[in-house]
């Protein structure tokens, strides 16, 4: 007997969902063992995680606030992924957006009406993210330069650039020698609706816009064709390089806007850690959501819950946030691995009579 791997032609939605649920349950089981080995009661830990993510209105609000930037940046990254362009530079694009937004907020008069200030910052952040994203896209289109490596490197260039700004060029003289950049003025802070900054409305609008872009517009169609097969796109007479450049401009712009939302919505200060690794998390979220905007809304929300729950777990039970991070890693492993069983099936194969006789 031999086990053979066969690609599935088709899988029922229910069965695929079942495989994924089993994978997540198994991951939590491994996480429970890990927690037990580290001397914590897993049941209590998961209870605390759930409670601090969803337990009260204010907890749900915190979860949503954590999820907002994750959802927005994942939408941006997903546009690139739709073209088969591996944009792991979300973090750098987010920082670029936040840098431009900070610059605008510090240089426009503080007497400006809030709406104008915020629109100017948003426009600036879109542009900032776009500019930093289009550099590797240009070299990809023109010379075929590997975009995974290029966008990855740009993250660190931007991170150290912001560090330079924070410790030198933009260091706040009023901070008594403490290396930080001055907070944005009051008219640069996002208003709140239902107790949460309006980033959540921006996120929902973007989910709709990106869905429409991909499903209803010509460029969205072209983006999907390029992603499916560059050759098909060429045969169909599309200018593949133009599609990639336009797609990446949108991808980077949305990542840049995330920087502005984070700045005006939660942190108010620019720092190199403003993104908090969300550029990488976005790659994972977009991928787990199968690049679907609605999927990103859901997966992004769950990631927000996981992150927020981990904070509560540390406060309530003293379980280190680092351990929660590794549990997040475990769950990712589970969900990554299970896709294999969604896409392929294992077939037991017995040698047939003919082959036996031949042997």
């Amino acid at each position, binding site marked *: 007997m031999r086990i053979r791997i066969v690609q599935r032609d088709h899988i029922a939605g229910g069965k695929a969902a079942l495989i994924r649920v089993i994978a997540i349950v198994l991951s939590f089981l491994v996480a429970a063992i890990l927690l037990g080995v580290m001397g914590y009661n897993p049941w209590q830990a998961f209870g605390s995680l759930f409670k601090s993510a969803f337990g009260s209105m204010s907890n749900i609000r915190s979860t949503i606030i954590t999820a907002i930037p994750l959802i927005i940046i994942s939408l941006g990254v997903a546009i690139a992924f739709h073209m088969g362009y591996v944009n792991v530079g979300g973090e750098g694009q987010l920082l670029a957006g936040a840098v431009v937004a900070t610059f605008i907020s510090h240089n426009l008069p503080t007497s400006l009406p809030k709406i104008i200030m915020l629109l100017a910052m948003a426009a600036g952040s879109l542009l900032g993210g776009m500019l930093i994203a289009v550099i590797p896209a240009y070299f990809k289109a023109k010379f075929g*330069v*590997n975009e995974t490596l290029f966008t990855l490197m740009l993250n660190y260039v931007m991170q150290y650039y912001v560090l330079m700004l924070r410790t*030198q060029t933009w260091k706040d003289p009023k901070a008594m020698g403490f290396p930080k950049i001055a907070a944005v003025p009051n008219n640069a802070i996002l208003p709140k609706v239902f107790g949460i900054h309006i980033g959540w409305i921006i996120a929902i609008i973007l989910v709709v816009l990106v869905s429409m872009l991909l499903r209803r517009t010509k460029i969205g169609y072209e983006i999907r064709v390029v992603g499916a097969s560059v050759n098909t796109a060429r045969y169909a007479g599309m200018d593949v390089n133009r599609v990639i450049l336009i797609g990446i401009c949108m991808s980077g712009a949305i990542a840049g806007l995330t920087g502005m939302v984070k700045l005006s919505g939660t942190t108010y200060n620019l720092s190199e850690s403003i993104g908090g690794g969300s550029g990488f998390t976005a*790659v994972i979220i977009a*991928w787990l959501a199968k690049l679907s905007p609605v999927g990103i809304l859901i997966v992004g929300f769950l990631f927000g819950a996981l992150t927020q729950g981990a904070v509560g777990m540390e406060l309530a039970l003293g379980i*280190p946030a680092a351990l929660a*991070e*590794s549990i997040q890693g475990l769950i*990712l492993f589970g969900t990554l691995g299970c896709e294999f069983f969604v896409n*392929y099936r294992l077939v037991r194969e017995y040698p047939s009579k003919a082959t036996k006789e031949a042997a």
Partner: protein
Amino acid sequence: MNSVSLSIALLLASGIRISTPLILGALGETVTERAGHLNLGVEGMMMLGGALAYTVALHTESVILALLGGMLGAMFGSLVYAFLTVALRANQTVTGLALTTFGVGLGNTIGKLGNGANVPSAVTQFFGKGPLTLNLDGIENKPVIGPVLTFINEAILKHNIFVYLAIILAIILYIFLFKTRAGLHLRAVGESPAAADASGINVNRVKYTGILIGGALAGLAGAYYPLAHIGTWTDNITGGRGWIVVALVIFVRWHPIKAIFGSFLFGLLDIIGLRLPTLFPGVAGLAIFSEYAFNMYPYIMTIIVLIASYIRGRKGWMGPAALGHSYFREER
């Protein structure tokens, strides 16, 4: 020896010291990428290796066991990556990032269990010794030969064994990759797994080997920080060096020997950035000469090399052809 040449010697020495874990990590990632797998989990594997090495050192006071522990810790991470990307054909970029999340989290958790205890002196003393250091009593003050030997002694010969181990490993891996049959097979798998498969190479076995070697070396690199560099555990002890390693592999174009010099250059830039404001007070306050600017330059240099490689388009400069792609034999 006058103070200027002494400070230059010490500068070179620090550059060499901090480049050592970079060489080790880069060698590992080079082998992994030569087998066609982009493992972005280096940072996570280094954290796992560092945490395990630290923990084992605390409990056994043994250098060998601590190093073995570090290697095994990181290899565990690379095994998970290998299983997911080779056997289950998961996306390499995403799996690598997940490994970093996992490894950094678990590494910090395990490292913290030591409560910041110092690495036992039996271990730190071992790494404090410079086995090649010359005894210059009596020669020191002789003209010409005295200062020259002192300079060489201070800059190159006073290091701990890890430094020389890294260089020897680079040479061994160069021979392995370019002069042996097994190395040829590994590179063939990274260039074209289908062709390698057709010629009878066991593609999966080669991939597992390459990825696990990458894990073992990342583990050694991670172990360097608690054992030989800092002497205790601190949160995020590898401090993002895993990403420098990924850059370095591109910078040296997937070549083990060049990795030695590339690492040294990156290490030197790091040190220069730290020392420049004290050496030349005139540049203090200029952002482009600041510590963080010098942290940024390795990444900019890597980008320039990456672009130049593609524009020149020389064969072998753009990395293994199948890097990042899952391989599966067509089966119906």
